[in-house]
């Protein structure tokens, strides 16, 4: 039986499409892009072929034992030497001729310690334009064992973000210590002694309950308002009833 003309035409088109797809899939596209192994595994080879620039912190410790033992005890214990000093493989190979880089001006430290609201609460942050302008950081702080010269007097020294938020809220006039009790140790080593936080509904009720004394505070009926939820599950105490 003769094959209808239509089928012949369509068969050619279909064959061209299938052939095109097979050509692209198996010839034109790099194998690593579509392999079932680790996606684009060939990039590992590409990276391995690049020259090594970092010496690694063990290489630093071998010669600079005194500095590295001091760093290990201080707040910068989790930083790697080359994080500040830059890649030093060439220095490790040839210590006398290639001298390592050291950031000594004011530009470098604020990369981590300039104020940024997204940084974790309590992370030491300063405003570089207001904090001892012009002086290089290293005149007061030793980067290998950084400590504040004096213990902070105000909570806002570390908790700037909370302080700024609270300052525009209806709780602006309350002291931090109204709600938190702060052990003296917290100012020296913040993570070894935590300040307290209110943990009951009754605490907020002390001002906002129906029978509470402060006249200005909004009053609610503690027995019916909010059901089983704790106050701070709906109201952020540092910005209560915030309006953006």
């Amino acid at each position, binding site marked *: 039986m003769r094959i209808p003309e239509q089928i012949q*035409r369509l068969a050619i088109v279909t064959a061209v499409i299938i052939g095109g797809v097979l050509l692209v899939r198996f010839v034109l596209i790099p194998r690593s892009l*579509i392999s079932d192994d680790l996606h684009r595994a060939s990039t590992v080879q590409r990276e391995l072929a690049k020259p090594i620039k970092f010496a690694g912190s063990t290489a630093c410790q071998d010669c600079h034992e005194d500095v590295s033992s001091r760093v290990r005890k201080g707040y910068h214990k989790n930083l790697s030497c080359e994080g500040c000093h830059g890649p030093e493989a060439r220095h490790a190979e040839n210590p006398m001729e290639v001298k390592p880089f050291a950031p000594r001006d004011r530009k470098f430290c604020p990369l981590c310690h300039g104020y940024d609201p997204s940084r974790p609460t309590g992370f030491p942050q300063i405003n570089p334009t207001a904090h001892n302008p012009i002086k290089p950081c290293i005149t007061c702080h030793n980067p290998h064992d950084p400590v504040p010269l004096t213990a902070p007097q105000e909570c806002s020294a570390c908790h700037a973000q909370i302080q700024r938020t609270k300052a525009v809220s209806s709780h602006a006039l309350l002291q931090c210590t109204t709600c938190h009790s702060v052990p003296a140790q917290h100012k020296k080593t913040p993570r070894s002694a935590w300040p307290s936080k209110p943990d009951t509904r009754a605490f907020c009720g002390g001002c906002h309950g129906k029978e509470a004394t402060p006249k200005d505070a909004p009053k609610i009926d503690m027995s019916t308002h909010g059901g089983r939820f704790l106050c701070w599950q709906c109201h952020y105490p540092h910005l209560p009833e915030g309006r953006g």
Partner: protein
Amino acid sequence: MNPERIQDLFDLLGQVTGYIYPNEIEIHWSILVVVYPYVTGLVAGAFILASLVKVFKVKEVEPTYRLALLTALAFLLVAPLPLLLHLSQPMRSFEIFLTPNLTSAMAMFGFVYAWYLMAVLLLELWFEYRRDLVVLGKESTFPMSWIYRALSLFSTDVSDRAVAFDLKAIRMITIIGIPSAFLLHGYVGFIFGSVKANPWWSSVLMPIVFLMSAIVSGIALVVFLYMVLTSIRNQPIDMRCLDTIVSYLFYAVIVDFSLEALDFIHRLYQSEESVKILGTLITNKLFMSLFVLQILLGMIIPLGILVVARSRTFNDDMRKLLYFTSVILIQVGIFSTRWNVVIGGQLFSKSFRGLMAYKMEVMGIEGLLAALALLILPFVILTVFIRLLPTERMEDHVARTA
């Protein structure tokens, strides 16, 4: 994120009610994701109408057969564009094609789309137009003659036997095409229906509701286009055809309405933990788009118009007017349906205790203008198709004008 976008999100804070999680302020699926199911729905609906002629042998609908197929193709070509624009980095979609994920429901769109475009719609159109293309290739002058010849794949056989084979092939393809069209749009509903974490979407009825509303919108669109096209060409409207299509539209609207009502009552009776926030959502944020646009303007009023048009004897012009009004209202209603599903599903917090707001961009890549352009584009493509390809079989045309 760019500062302007952040500022926009700040503006939205004022419209948030109750308690929401911090990362819920930004609505990620924008108006383009509303346009996408709307457009694919039109494709599926138009194709189902076309299949009435070939599979179910409804001869009255014949005059709209080719128009319905061309409409389906024009809209199908535009269907992936909203998704590509929504990617923000459209070029990255290339990676998806290279490394197809066979277990991802979203990746299935690529396969379903490719199957529907290549194996169903283009094939059916080719068989349907082949004879006319051969004739047009011979009759027209250069360069059109070459375009027609290329479109016919340089076919030459117009014998009765070959034409009979075409008709047989079309019937076969349409039979495969109906489940494919169901798959194309049912799949979109499936994506939404299988989002377990979202009680507004998560429902097994979702694919079926999507499908029925797709059939409604597709049929309504073809009726609209048929009426516009005949008036532009100064041709008389085949009222027997129009009455038949509208009667199918009428039944489809009733089924669609019943399914949506069933879904609604089912949710109300089940009364899961989300029912309270969904109640607030529909009476608050979605009141206009759900109750007024979707249910009243898009469903009850056109249904009333169709009931009146069918139960009383009006003259042709009055019926045309009633039909035309109802198909436009139905389009508004179905677009609102898509809006309420896509945007509505993102307006309540996963905490079930707060509502967000959606602020549409105007100029951006996911803005109002981009959405309008995507809705206009299929009509432009369709105009080119209609200029190029006759919407009436040439034999019929000759018979009618003689």
